[in-house]
């Protein structure tokens, strides 16, 4: 019976192939939408594992989260070093890492931070950063780069690079006089870290100073034009513990001794009198973000479901239009001993076969697409798609598609069953 069904399908391989392809594409779309939804959430959540609070200037929580951790959108306003010291000195604080944002190097974001970042940053359930080779930046003209930066630009340890101001790919000003030297390349993490250039806060600020100098022609040694009060030399000349007070930072990543203190610390920061600050809980903010994106996800998923329905209806149409032609074939099969249920199974089995083969092909297509498209997704959207086995939910979706395919197969199956009962062996079409 199976042999017969396959031979019959091979005889109609063109339409069968097209039907299979349409089911494959629709299944790939449906599972792809689900996969991207899941992967984007997983990727976002794994990026900020271990950080209990993010402190920054007041803006929307989602904005602060996206800009500080994912380098998406414009950075929030600067906050003062005093605020950092206050937060770091709180009894509940285990660690606090300052970060400065807003610059880029050939399209890759530049982050100014301290060595503590490499110690405390955690991704993917508590994994820390590891240096592939070299060491963390020691002075203001050294940089640590993510693996993607190294790969895309061909940088290795020891190589010099010139950082420019602004977050875009194209910068009009390049600070040729103050090149940075790469001291280390980080191991791959599958997070935005891979696409980031890390420099010290002093180095970050030196870029700014250089830019100001280049743009306005001021003498950097006079420290004229720096926004902050305090020590004068914000440029190349003045560096040291004292001078840090002059450094602008954008956000503070905070780890707490106990998560239970999170709300308390958050309230303290939000009510901080020194300057307007906001503290966010990354996990809670992510949930807020998902609630925003859920509408779009639902819309996409609905469209994908309809595309699957169209694919299955396409199959139903093809099977039904061929049915009249096949009555004669079925009469022959009946004459050699096939029962009405045999005949029904033959026709319904075709639908099952087409759905199974189509859905399998769809999964293969999807994985091929993911393999091919993952670098592009990573480069353009910072989305790291893990090539993993189908999740339970995806298998559930596949199962649903298969189930629907079988149900659809029952329609022509039942019709041919009725036909064979009526025709017997005497079809004369």
């Amino acid at each position, binding site marked *: 019976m199976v042999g017969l069904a396959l*031979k019959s399908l091979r*005889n109609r391989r063109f339409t069968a192939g097209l039907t299979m392809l349409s089911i494959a594409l629709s299944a790939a779309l449906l599972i792809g939408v689900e996969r991207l939804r899941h992967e984007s959430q997983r990727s976002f959540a794994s990026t900020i594992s271990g950080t209990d609070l993010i402190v920054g200037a007041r803006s929307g929580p989602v904005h602060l989260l996206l800009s500080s951790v994912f380098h998406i959108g414009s950075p929030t306003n600067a906050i003062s070093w005093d605020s950092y010291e206050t937060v770091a000195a709180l009894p509940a604080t285990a660690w606090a890492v300052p970060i400065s944002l807003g610059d880029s190097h050939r399209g890759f974001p530049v982050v100014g931070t301290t060595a503590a970042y490499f110690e405390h940053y955690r991704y993917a359930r508590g994994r820390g950063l590891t240096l592939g080779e070299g060491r963390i930046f020691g002075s203001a003209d050294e940089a640590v780069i993510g693996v993607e930066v190294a790969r895309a630009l061909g940088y290795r340890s020891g190589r010099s690079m010139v950082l420019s101001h602004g977050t875009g790919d194209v910068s009009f000003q390049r600070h040729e006089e103050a090149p940075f030297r790469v001291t280390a390349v980080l191991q791959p993490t599958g997070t935005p870290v891979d696409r980031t250039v890390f420099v010290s806060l002093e180095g970050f600020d030196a870029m700014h100073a250089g830019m100001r100098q280049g743009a306005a022609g001021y003498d950097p040694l006079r420290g004229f034009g720096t926004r902050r009060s305090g020590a004068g030399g914000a440029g190349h000349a003045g560096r040291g513990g004292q001078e840090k007070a002059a450094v602008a930072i954008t956000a503070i990543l905070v780890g707490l001794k106990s998560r239970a203190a999170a709300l308390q610390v958050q309230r303290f920061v939000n009510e901080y009198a020194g300057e307007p600050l906001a503290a966010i809980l990354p996990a809670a903010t992510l949930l807020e973000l998902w609630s925003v994106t859920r509408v779009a996800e639902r819309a996409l998923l609905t469209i994908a479901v309809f595309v699957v329905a169209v694919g299955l209806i396409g199959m139903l149409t093809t099977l039904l239009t061929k049915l009249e032609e096949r009555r004669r074939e079925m009469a*022959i*099969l009946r004459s*050699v001993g096939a029962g009405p249920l045999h005949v029904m199974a033959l026709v319904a089995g075709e639908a099952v076969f087409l759905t199974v083969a189509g859905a399998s092909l769809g999964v293969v297509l999807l994985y091929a697409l993911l393999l091919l498209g993952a670098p592009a997704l990573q480069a353009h959207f910072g989305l790291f798609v893990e090539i993993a086995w189908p999740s339970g939910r995806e298998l559930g979706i596949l199962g649903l598609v298969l189930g629907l395919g079988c149900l659809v197969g029952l329609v022509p199956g039942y019709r041919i069953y009725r036909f064979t009962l009526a025709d017997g*062996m005497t079809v004369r079409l």
Partner: protein
Amino acid sequence: MIVDLADLRYAWKNGARPLIDIPRLTAEVGERVLLWGPSGSGKSTLLGLLGGVLAAQHGRLRLLGQDLARMRGVQRDRFRADYIGVIFQLFNLVPYLSVVENVTLPCRFSRHRKARALHRSSSLEREAIRWLTALELSDREVLEKPVAELSVGQQQRVAAARALIGAPALVLADEPTSALDADLKEAFLGLLLAECAREGTTLLFVSHDHSLLPQFDRGVDFAALNRAQAQPPRDPAPQRRIA
């Protein structure tokens, strides 16, 4: 007795006017019987009953000593697969199967016929070719053609080989010659009758063509046999459409 039916009545559904009402019809082992009658006299319906595709509401329908009227649908299908070969008027072949695959088709549905075919030849394919050769259709070129490209005469001989493979006790033929011209008709009928005689197969051959009668062991006037068919009932659907 291979065929033994008595007081057999069949209607499209219970309570409707019967299409078949036959007091008695028999056929002995190896007997080749021509059932002749005009079209619409219920000949094909009788073949459906004999083939176990239709179920009679009343009477006795014994084939090889077993009562088909008492069997359930699945059992009748199994019985047909094992003991009955069928040749249609036209379109006998499954288009996506090769000539040899068409001939061996019954062996896919009946272990019994497969075993008997393998009893004679070492493989089903050889047995198929043996039958095709017996029916004068052994040309390699013909065997390798897609079945749709065979002439009608060739197709009918492939159908005969399929009906005879695995030595069924009974072959039912539904006007298999009416699409053939006179020469081919003679040749086909001659081959079919000879092979049935050699195998001892009982043949019930239905035709509107009375002139074939001399070549058979016996003929039955179907119009006279079937009491239900004074006038063939009309299909009500087209009438409604006209109105």
